């Protein structure tokens, strides 16, 4: 019995000591968990961005001309964009609101025919609140680098634009360069034609052949309204005069109208070589 009382007293002292030890480190522990969880949210946000946002806002959120604006951009973080849309809350609120509820109208003076869809489950979208929050902290984590890029020289125009003549003779195309152009921010084609089906998918699917084969079939179809005589001309026409013929089931005006001024003949040739190489 004496041993029990002695050991019990000793245990009580140990218990008090352990509680004291925990109490001393508790503030630091809570702090460290908070930091770690914030960091893990950025990780989650990064993978959500790749799945849901990259298709339109481009790799690294640099935007795709004519599809969706850059969010990895200085004006988002220095307050200019918030001022432009007349938003008086914080950036976090703005991002959360726009991602959750979408954008019914584009910002003034911009040309983005597609609307930002609603993403939060509360607005009929697919994402939970904590996922939206993860996306917001991921986007906000661009701040340092986006602001640091201000003043960096804009990339120089890369040559004479191709114009709207579809009979132009093209140089030899390079499929790899075409792929890089299609998937990068400058071309931005893959956002709608590969990753999402906003425009007709380029790749073959089921009985439908790839885009190049379809092009050579289509010019002979009765409902074709354009002027192309070869598959190559059809593809040039689709890029530089997107409304000359719109495949049934897709809307006119969605495809950006300014590729004739933005792309060189070499770039169009690369793109077509890339399309031809697709299965």
């Amino acid at each position: 019995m004496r041993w029990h009382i002695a050991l019990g007293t000793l245990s009580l002292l140990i218990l008090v000591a352990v509680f004291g030890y925990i109490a001393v480190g508790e503030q630091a522990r809570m702090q460290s968990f908070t930091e770690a969880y914030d960091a893990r949210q950025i990780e989650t946000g990064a993978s959500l961005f790749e799945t849901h946002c990259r298709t339109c806002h481009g790799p690294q959120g640099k935007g795709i001309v004519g599809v969706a604006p850059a969010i990895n951009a200085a004006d988002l973080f220095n307050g200019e964009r918030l001022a432009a849309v007349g938003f008086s809350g914080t950036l976090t609120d703005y991002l959360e609101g726009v991602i959750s509820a979408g954008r019914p109208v584009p910002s003034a003076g911009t040309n983005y025919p597609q609307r930002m869809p609603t993403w939060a489950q509360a607005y009929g979208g697919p994402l939970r609140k904590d996922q939206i929050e993860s996306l917001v902290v991921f986007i906000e984590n661009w701040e340092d680098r986006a602001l640091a890029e201000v003043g960096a020289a804009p990339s120089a125009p890369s040559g004479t634009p191709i114009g709207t003549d579809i009979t132009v003779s093209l140089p030899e195309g390079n499929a790899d360069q075409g792929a890089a152009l299609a998937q990068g921010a400058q071309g931005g084609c893959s956002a709608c034609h590969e990753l999402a089906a906003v425009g007709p998918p380029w790749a073959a699917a089921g009985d439908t052949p790839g885009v190049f084969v379809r092009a050579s079939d289509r010019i002979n179809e009765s409902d074709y309204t354009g002027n192309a005589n070869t598959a190559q001309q059809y593809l040039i026409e689709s890029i530089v005069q997107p409304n000359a013929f719109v495949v049934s089931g897709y809307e006119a005006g969605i495809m950006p109208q300014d590729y004739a001024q933005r792309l060189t003949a070499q770039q169009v040739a690369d793109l077509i070589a890339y399309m031809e190489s697709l299965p």
Partner: protein
Amino acid sequence: MAIFRLHLPILDEIKEKGLRPALRDKTDDIVTRVTAGLSIQDVRSMLRDDPPGRPNPRLKPHSEGFWLHMKPTYYHNLVDGIYPTFRLGWLSTFFFVVEIVTGVLLMVYYTPSPEFAFTNMLDILSNVPFGRLIRDIHRLGAELMVAIVMLHALRTFLTGSYKKPRQFTWATGIILLLVTWLLSFSGYLLPWDQLSLWAVTIGVSMVEAIPPEVVGRTVNLLFRGAPEFGANGLLRWYLLHVVALPLAGIVFVGVHYYKVVLHGHSLPPDAEEVGEDTARRVPTDSRTYFFPHIATRELFYVVALTALIVIGALFVHAPLEPHADPLVTPLHSTAPWYFLWLQGMLKLGDKVIFGLIVPGVLIGGLLVLPYVEVGPSRRYGSRRIGLTAGLGLVFTFGVLSYMGSPWFAVQTSPEQEAVAELLPQTHPGPLRLADWEGFTVGTYEASAYDQAPTETLRSVLDEFEGSIEGIKIDGRSDYQGVIVIEDWQTNLKKLTLRILWTDDVTGKPGEYSQTVYLHKDSNYGQGE
């Protein structure tokens, strides 16, 4: 004339006896009331371990008090040692109390709603002083309680203590085993992380198999609250966990304890004649009285075990996986360990037979065991068949549990398994735990791990190579592992794990890849 008169009898006594004697008598009176019958003198002599007077005043708290009605006044010396009880029943009760205390504390910070539950967990970990400790103790205590209750049942079986007259005690014990399982299991859903959702989804999907189909569907719906787990399902499981099951537990613990006191602790099997039960006829020289010996010892146990479990909680942390997502089934998600045997049986075949009928017959059989197995002898030597069957059941439990684990007959692609070794979906794993600074941007081949620039990369690549070497699929060869590390954002790196191979027939290359983003501060080493 006063409106009311305050009468303090102590003042009269002070007037009559003087201050000190009056206060001493009053204190004695209070102590006697609180201890339900022991005066200060009795308490002092008890603590000095003097022989008790006659009649023994130390029996009064048992006969006059409420709480000690639950405790025998004395134990047979033969059941006072570690053998034959191993204190397992007492330990079960101890952990039940620990769970109630920590559970009530956790309830303060918890909202049973899918919108808040997971955030509540984060708050408990990041914003509640001692929050993680309480959660860890609750979780650790729950796992220990399940194990102890199961061992308690096993011990009772082995010593034959379920036999007449203790049949009903055994039956309530089996009910308490079920309550314990369900208590622990129902707690799984509450954090609303991936572990919660999928462990419980696996468990509940079994009831769906109850025939006829309409019953299975209805019961399934009752447990889920909707075709998919959501707000209603969480609320139901929460109420089961914090109200219904604890109440059932308290009621049956009461019955169980009452029966134990009524029949006495059964003696070791060879201590009495076959067919006799002498637990209630304890010779005076073989008694160990509750006061003071057992009481001080149990008090010591309480303090020492509390200290042990708090220290244990410093090292064993309750896991918290990512937020529950009904669309993403994590690779290798399993039922809790004590239900792995069920999951193992389900792999044997038909859901109705192996998920319902066999477990149902087993549990039902355990419940009525003492009413069916009526052999009079409790001695080990006369129960060879019974003991062999019992140990066979324990062995089967072990084998089935192994079969329930992901290592047995789970069909996923070997490439996926190889990547999951570095990047598991149910716990952090080597890649997330590795030193972030060591992930130098670049492309690395697993086979050339010894040429990687940092120690971190060398060990990660070595492990990757090891798991790729284990892949064997007919018709594919030339397996190769590549890790691509990209600088993605400030303090954020993107790691892509690629496994490449060549198809032997067509000669075409194949690829499996998985991507993970790692932040400098994500600190997965904290144990959650």
